[in-house]
Structures are given as structure tokens and as C-alpha cells.
């Protein structure tokens, strides 16, 4: 990826914060934010503008019976026993928050704010695993896997320029050190770009990497988590 200056980033920041920056520029902007605290702060402020704008939309009464239908659906799809656990790893909270719109750049923000992996473990929290997603020798995204309870996986992918997978449904699976794999879910890329997060069982003792698969089962990108005793 070519370098992006702070000046250029600040030009793109409004579109980035409003979530309308095209994928390719977005990927480069995100890479810059990952290493530039000043620009992150700036984009965060602009994100508040977007939030404020949405806050001006008037409330509207949904159709009759909405409340009952929602609660029915929630009670039918309950996947896990009740828990009151609250994760305290800042990165964990923010990385999944990203899946809802803060965008990939917030991952970098969160990781800077997060406690070091070792101190997180001291507090009884497992360390967040992260690795680059690589296709044809190029980094095309990042994956984060949290081996807690509940565990989850989050990733951002930018396959713009690759022939395969640009506008299709992709599948993610985790690899174990014994060579077996576990499917964790699928999502759709738009113009080659996408980010996605979901609850997933992540076993810190055995997870070794991840694969991103095209609809036809071919491997689009792979990731390898660093060895457990060398937190990145």
C-alpha cells in the first residue's frame, strides 16, 4: 500500500467518518489511522458529527405488533445460556463495535488503548489474537479472534483488484493446529470490501489461523496467528 500523508487523510476524513469513502481509498486511510493517533482523533470527532446527524431523525411508531414479534424472535433464537459477564478488554468491545459501523479504523484505535496482552491475562482475560489476512502475498485485511467466553471473530477485508470474491458471499473458517477447520460464518463483500463480526467459539490452545473462502470453496485469503507466547 502506498503511503498516505496526514494532510491527505484529513481531506478524506469527512467521507471516511460518514462511511462513504470508496473501498480502495478507505483501505489506505485505515492503514494510516492504524499508526497515526492524531488523525484517529480527528476522524473520531467527525464520526460524532455523523452520529449527531442520525440523532436528528424523528422517531416513528412501528407497525402494530412489532414489539411482540421482536421479543418472540429473540426468545426463539437464544443461542447461549444467560450470562452477565462483561468483557473488559477494550479492544474486544471496540472491535465488535466496528462491525456496526465505526469502521475498521476503530480497531487500531482500540488496540492502542487496550491493556497489553499479558496484563489482560493477569486479570483473567484471554488475549485478543490478531493476524493479517494475506492473498497472493499481499495483505488484504485483518482478522481478530477473541478466545473468551463468549468468543468472537471480527475481520475487515479489501479484495478490490482481485478477480475473485469481489461481490460475493464469502465464508470464514478457523484453522486448528491439528489441521482441522471450524466454519464460523459468512458475509457478503460489496465491491470487494467488507467487515464482519460474529460470536464464535475460539479455543486459544488450538486455534492457529483462519481462511476466507469464496462461494465455490476456493481459498481467497489466509491468516496465521502468532505463537501464543509471543503476543504482538
Amino acid at each position, binding site marked *: 500500500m502506498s503511503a498516505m500523508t496526514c494532510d491527505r487523510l484529513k481531506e478524506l476524513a469527512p*467521507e471516511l467518518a460518514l462511511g*462513504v469513502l470508496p473501498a480502495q481509498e478507505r483501505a489506505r486511510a485505515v492503514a494510516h489511522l492504524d499508526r497515526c493517533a492524531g488523525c484517529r482523533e480527528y476522524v473520531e470527532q467527525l464520526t460524532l458529527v455523523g452520529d449527531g446527524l442520525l*440523532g436528528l431523525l424523528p422517531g416513528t411508531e412501528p407497525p402494530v405488533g412489532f414489539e411482540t414479534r421482536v421479543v418472540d424472535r429473540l426468545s426463539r433464537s437464544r443461542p447461549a445460556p444467560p450470562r452477565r459477564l462483561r468483557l473488559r478488554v477494550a479492544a474486544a468491545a471496540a472491535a465488535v463495535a466496528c462491525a456496526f459501523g465505526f469502521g475498521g479504523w476503530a480497531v487500531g484505535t482500540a488496540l492502542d488503548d487496550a491493556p497489553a496482552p499479558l496484563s489482560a491475562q493477569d486479570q483473567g482475560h484471554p488475549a485478543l489474537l490478531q493476524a493479517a489476512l494475506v492473498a497472493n502475498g499481499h495483505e488484504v485485511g485483518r482478522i481478530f479472534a477473541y478466545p473468551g467466553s463468549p468468543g468472537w471473530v471480527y475481520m475487515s477485508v479489501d479484495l478490490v483488484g482481485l478477480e475473485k470474491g469481489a461481490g460475493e458471499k464469502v465464508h470464514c473458517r478457523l484453522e486448528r493446529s491439528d489441521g482441522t477447520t471450524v466454519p464460523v460464518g459468512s458475509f457478503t463483500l460489496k465491491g470487494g470490501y467488507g467487515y464482519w463480526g460474529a460470536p464464535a467459539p475460539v479455543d486459544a490452545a488450538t486455534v492457529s489461523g483462519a481462511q476466507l473462502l469464496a462461494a465455490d470453496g476456493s481459498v481467497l485469503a489466509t491468516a496465521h496467528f502468532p505463537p501464543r507466547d509471543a503476543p504482538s
Partner: protein
Amino acid sequence: MQRMGLPLGRATDEALLSGLTTGDPEIAVAFVRRFQRIVFGVAIAVVGDPQLAEDIAQQTFERAWRHAQIYDSRRGSVKTWLTTIAHNLAIDAVRARRASPVAPEDLDALLDIVTDTPEQQALADETSARIRSAVAALPREQARALVMAGIYGMTAQQIAEFERIPLGTAKTRIRTATRKLRTTLGTEASRR
């Protein structure tokens, strides 16, 4: 969930959200009841279609319920969090469905609503009131660009085509409007 005699209707937003994870249906009802107008309001404003808006609102509550444990109050209120989830789902739905993200008459109607200063504004929180008057004070073409990007999720390219203006002009309008609003917010943001 602290339910010792306290009516659920008076629990804080955060307490209700964390109560969702207990699986108590009464808490789920209270949560949905409190936020359904906001969530549905965002969905219908963006997609315009009541049936699709209901789907989006339902999905929003499902996501919130599934991810209640990892909501982080330091990154915004529960209301903002839900609004963001609903907005992203709505934009995705619009992008998947329609070639043009907005009809001109819908844009004008929404712009009027967003910049309107109704009597209820006295009841709204101060931040919303300030943003509302800041949007109202923008030149109309900047306010349109801001609403197209920030609410309808249109790219600068789409805005340029919609308004029949050069791409650079569309970008400038988005930038100028966003920065003006940031200045409005900045005077009160003492987050650091």
C-alpha cells in the same frame, strides 16, 4: 439486573441493555418498547419502505441482544449504538436494492425534518439542538450533500451524479459541511 421493586421503565438504558443478557422476556419487552420508535425511525427514514424498515428494526434488536455483553458505554450512548446498527443495516439494504439511494422529494422532505425547529426542541438534548441549528444554518447545497452522505450513505460520486455537479464539488460540499458541524460540536467536546 436490579429489579428490586424498581419498575423496568425507570431502569437506565445501560441497565436494560445488560439485562437483555439474562434472557428475561420482561426486560426484552421493556428494552424494545423504549427504543423501537428511534430504531424504526432511522430505518424508515433511510429505506422508505415500511416492510423493509420493520425487517431492519427487528434485525437491529437481534444484533443488540446478541452483542449486549460487549457494548461499551465509553464509545457512546445505548441510543447512539442502536441508531448506528440500524443505520448500517438500512444502508446495506438500500445499496442491495436500489440503483438510486434516494428520490429527490424524499431528500427534500427529510432535509426539512432534520432542519426543522419544532416546539419539542426545548425537550431535546442540547447537542441535538445545536446540531440541528448548525445544519439549518448551512447553505442548502451543503446540507443536501451532508444528508445524502451521512443519512443515505451516498458516496461523493453518487452525490455528484444526483446533483449534476463535478465530483470535486461534491467532495468539497461534504467536507465543508462536516467540518462546520464539527466546529459546532467541538466547542462543547472536552473529551480530552
